[in-house]
């Protein structure tokens, strides 16, 4: 009984905090226009099958793999990083673009972009409003993943703070992928094209921080003409090191700043792309 309450507090509180940050942003920080767009977009996500399909697929895959292949039950080990969190970004490489592909491509296909951008709003209002709405879908996925926490607490005595950090790291990573998708969807009116290109870019972004890439960057040292700058670049923006630090419970300011500034940069780029496309 006590354990259950402790557990609830452990997870209800951070969930409520994230939700509260969202609501506070929308109600007090961001202008009314962002709120209006956000509301419309959230409704439109949950009025169409896309959000449910994405959430469902995400839950099935993430839980399935963890229980059957991750050896969660056998190991009896109470660390979720090994069997669960380290895989989450892989799913998000596909799922976040699936959620975000419609952000701007749909707007262009329907022609409603012409309505949206002739309204008395700044383009960033629309970009942020839509982005926040899509991140609600991602947030819903993570909130609905809580049974795994319950299971792990049933099995043993894990450090729930670390688990929470795992969720935060996963959420931030997914938000980065979503931000990449936002830029890509501004380029094209086709959702499929946006989806495929975003998946490719997110994969690069995720893998860029891998050990082999770092080693290649170190050993090549400027050779190979274009390959080296490219490797160096994706190595610098690679998410893996930031993710694993955070997810293991090391709440580094540097990593948080990396995530937030990456997202901000992508949203800014979305505005630039939308502007250049019209010129």
């Amino acid at each position, binding site marked *: 009984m006590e354990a259950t309450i402790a557990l609830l507090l452990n997870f209800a509180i951070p969930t409520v905090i994230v939700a509260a940050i969202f609501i506070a942003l929308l109600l007090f920080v961001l202008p009314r226009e962002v709120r209006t767009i956000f509301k419309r977009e959230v409704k*439109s996500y949950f009025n169409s099958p896309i959000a449910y399909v994405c959430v469902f697929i995400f839950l099935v895959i993430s839980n399935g793999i963890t229980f059957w292949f991750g050896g969660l039950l056998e190991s009896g080990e109470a660390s979720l990083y090994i069997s669960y969190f380290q895989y989450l970004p892989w799913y998000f490489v596909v799922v976040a673009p699936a959620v975000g592909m419609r952000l701007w491509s749909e707007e262009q296909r329907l022609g409603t972009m012409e*309505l949206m951008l002739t309204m008395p709003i700044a383009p960033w209002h629309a970009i942020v409003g839509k982005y926040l709405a899509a991140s609600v879908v991602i947030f819903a996925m993570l909130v609905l993943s809580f049974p795994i926490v319950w299971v792990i607490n049933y099995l043993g005595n894990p450090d729930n703070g670390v688990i929470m950090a795992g969720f935060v790291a996963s959420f931030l990573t997914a938000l980065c992928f979503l931000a990449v998708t936002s830029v890509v969807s501004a380029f094209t009116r086709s959702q499929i094209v946006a989806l495929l290109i975003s998946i490719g870019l997110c994969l690069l972004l995720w893998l860029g921080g891998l050990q082999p890439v770092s080693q290649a960057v170190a050993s090549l040292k400027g050779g190979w003409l274009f390959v080296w700058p490219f490797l160096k670049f994706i190595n610098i923006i690679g998410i893996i090191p930031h993710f694993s630090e955070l997810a293991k419970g090391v709440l580094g300011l540097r990593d948080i700043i990396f995530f937030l500034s990456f997202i901000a940069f992508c949203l800014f780029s979305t505005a630039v792309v939308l502007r250049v496309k019209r010129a």
Partner: protein
Amino acid sequence: MIEVKNLSKHFGEKVAVDNISFTVEKGEVLGFLGPNGAGKSTTMRMVTGYLPPSAGDISVGGADILDEEIAAKSKIGYLPENAPLYSDMTVEDFLRFCAEMRRVPTDQIEDAVNKAIDTCFLQRVRHQSVDTLSKGFRHRTCLAQSIIHDPEVLILDEPTDGLDPNQKHEVRNLIKRMGETKAIIFSTHILEEVEASCSRAIIIDRGKIIADGTPDQLKKKARNAGAIFLRAGGLASTGIRQELEKLPEVQSVNVLESGDNSIVARVIPNKGKDKELPEAIFQLAVTKGLKVHELRVEEGRLDELFREITRPDTED
């Protein structure tokens, strides 16, 4: 209200709008005419702030569309070409969303939505999802969106496209009525519409303004304006023609039809002689025994002017 100065737009090498200027005051309805691809929609997209101009200035209600973007945009209501809508909303929700975005005060949104629904005859579909609407209703929904915040400036790109004849009539009247208190620009391919609702019209071809004036002024520019349509008999047709050509008031005679003893012709007067011409023709009747069956002064028609001054695509 709307001031456009030396506006140009290039898409790469292609010049879509080429140095055009015009102004529209409050109480004016400006009709935009021109062949397909003339640059009407591109001009409107620039005036509404959707496309950035390549060169030139646009100000709406005194606010520059680039420097004071939000102030300028908040004065405008815009119906884009093809009436785009969010397909996952109902008509009512869509209008509510637009009202909110257009900064209608929260307590007036319901009123604004109801009024727009009434004005555009949408009662029947107000709870229907937008993606199941027929084309005409889609168009009317988008039109409702453009007037929901009672803007001072209205930009309507082919507002009657896809409407049935009754609705076309209603929309023309609506434009005319709203034109008394607003500045309106609308584009159309239907020339009667210009006469029905415009106080002024501009004809654009390949990005340039090639005619500008009230519908009456424009009609007078048509080649046949002031010409006399004549159906007469009593003499041999060649005789009638010769007699007409001898008149000092006559510049030329176009024979449209000729029988043995009759003629149907368009008589073009010399410059400044159009008032005297009918009298001179009646004089012929007295002196030469010409029998006039029908005689009328042609007003000139917009479609004729349109065809005369816009080049068909084949001439490049």
